[in-house]
């Protein structure tokens, strides 16, 4: 057993020491590879906890040097074995984070937001770096969804400084100022580069234009396309033609309610109709009520009472009876749910 502790100890030393130098990385890589090779020769349950730490450092040092592709095959094989032996690695949080990242990249923003927020919530309090990362990604996903994160998100303890670039970015998106957005993206490009969020920020440009356009459409009942191009600060060789097609796409996507007049070259905003004369408020209200009731039912279904919380100890028979009742109630709710929807 002792000969495992040794490489592990050395490995930790490499990390806690001067990790900036490539030499220590090189050592750490060699050391972790050696320990993994040694680990493969034993199959003992007592080693599992230690093994999980080793796998973690193994993957971390390759990730830090950007050679993760080299050991991908190895890691997958290890994952297969771990699944086979049902090794509990407690990696659910990390899984959620990566899932959120993948979903963001694949444009499934709603699901991504859910995973990322859950990952940030489930993360242990001590894992500040991880929570900061989760928050950064969650902020971008919410921006991409067209939401504006609240100020409190950026003021969380210990995160103000790290989230500063994202705060300024949010501000630019909120105002819909393309020039400001460009400046922020340029100013913090190294931060965004190391967070690997650059590609996502490129996607945000579209949201900035939409917000700007919406502001214009609300403020003016009629405006020439030349002015729209000027206000949006589109830097292109043919700003008016671009503005025209951008506006027409925004109209089709339902972002603004307006019509275009090509002959005169202007955009006419429609009067915002009285929304309370339609069924819309009722539908919105209904969906909120349904959400609350559903939450209540979910909570009832999830309630569990430990048997010894009762003053008198219940007999086995009584307990069975009570459990059966609980189950019936849960089933009842489930059945009614099916009827409803």
């Amino acid at each position, binding site marked *: 057993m002792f000969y495992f502790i040794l490489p592990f100890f050395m490995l930790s030393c490499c990390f806690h020491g001067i990790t900036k130098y490539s030499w220590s990385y090189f050592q750490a890589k060699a050391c972790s590879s050696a320990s993994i090779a040694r680990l493969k020769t034993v199959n003992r349950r007592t080693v599992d906890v230690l093994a999980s730490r080793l796998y973690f450092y193994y993957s971390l040092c390759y990730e830090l040097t950007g050679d993760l592709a080299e050991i991908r095959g190895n890691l997958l094989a290890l994952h297969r074995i771990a699944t086979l032996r049902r090794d509990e690695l407690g990696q659910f949080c990390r899984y959620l984070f990566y899932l959120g990242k993948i979903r963001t990249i694949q444009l499934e923003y709603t699901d991504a937001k859910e995973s990322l927020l859950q990952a940030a919530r489930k993360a242990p309090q001590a894992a500040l770096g991880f929570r900061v990362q989760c928050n950064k990604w969650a902020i971008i996903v919410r921006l991409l969804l067209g939401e504006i994160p609240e100020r409190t998100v950026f003021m969380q303890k210990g995160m103000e400084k790290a989230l500063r670039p994202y705060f300024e970015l949010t501000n630019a998106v909120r105002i819909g100022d393309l020039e400001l957005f460009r400046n922020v993206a340029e100013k913090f490009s190294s931060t965004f580069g190391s967070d690997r969020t650059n590609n996502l920020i490129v996607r945000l*440009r579209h949201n900035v234009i939409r917000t700007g356009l919406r502001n214009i459409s609300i403020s003016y009942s009629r405006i020439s396309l030349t002015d729209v191009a000027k206000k949006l600060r589109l830097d292109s060789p043919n700003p008016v*033609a*671009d503005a025209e097609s*951008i*506006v027409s796409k*925004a*109209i*089709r996507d339902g972002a603004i309610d307006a019509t275009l007049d090509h002959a005169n070259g202007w955009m006419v905003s429609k009067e915002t*109709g009285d929304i309370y004369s339609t069924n819309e408020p009722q539908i919105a209200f209904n969906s909120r009520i349904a959400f609350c009731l559903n939450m209540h039912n979910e909570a009832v279904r999830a309630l569990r009472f430990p048997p010894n919380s009762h003053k008198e100890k219940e007999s086995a028979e009584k307990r069975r009876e009570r459990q059966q009742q609980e189950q019936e109630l849960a089933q009842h709710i489930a059945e009614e749910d099916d009827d409803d929807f």
Partner: protein
Amino acid sequence: MDPKITEVSQTFERFKAAFVRNDFDTCTRLLSQLKVLLTAFTSLPPLFQETSNAIHELTIARDIYEHAIVLSVKMEDQDAFERDFFQLKPYYTDARGRLPASPQEYPILGLNLLRLLVQNRIAEFHTELELLSQSALDNPCIKHAVELEQSFMEGAYHRVLSARQTVPDATYAYFMDLLAKTVRDEIAGCSEKAYDRLSTSDARQILLFSSDKELLQYVEKEHPEWEIKDGFIIFQKVKDSVPCKEIPSLQLITQTLSYARELERIV
């Protein structure tokens, strides 16, 4: 030299000769032969065995698949493109550390991005993009595709079409032509929502037709619901969210009853 390698290189030389002549039948025939021959090399993906000729074999296999992709573009076969690209990809990712970089790598990656854009597979487009390094993103071939996607999403369609003139490689023309058609359909879809009416000459300009005849043919084929009157195209508008005149009583009753039942359970 290994006789198997000699055979592959000889066939490949013949393939390249036919490739230059644009003799597609011979090319396809030789390519299938080459692919079968390649299966005998154990140094290639997914085995990656460290044989003595590994580097040579990997290089020639990569070269073959790169040519296969260009061939599929020339033959305008998108499915073949996809298959060949997936076979080529391990040479760019997994074998990256062992082979000298290929000059064809970025043009082909850019071409693939363009294909995903044309096929409207935006999620895959972004996944591919995420795998590229910063230096790759600065490459003109990749940049071209990235900027196209951005303009396309924004709705700056003129920028998409003017990019046709600045293609980084001759092979891009095929996909750019396909993209032009997609763009026209998009413009048509946006226009019918955004304008009440358009004069035919304006519509011709906006939809990028060179003559009124082509425009009329297009309208007849793709949008028979548009009305053409006195030199104007009149778009039929669908009115949505009209003020509600009737109370949807049945729906309301069901909803209220379900609220009552749920509340009863809580209290």
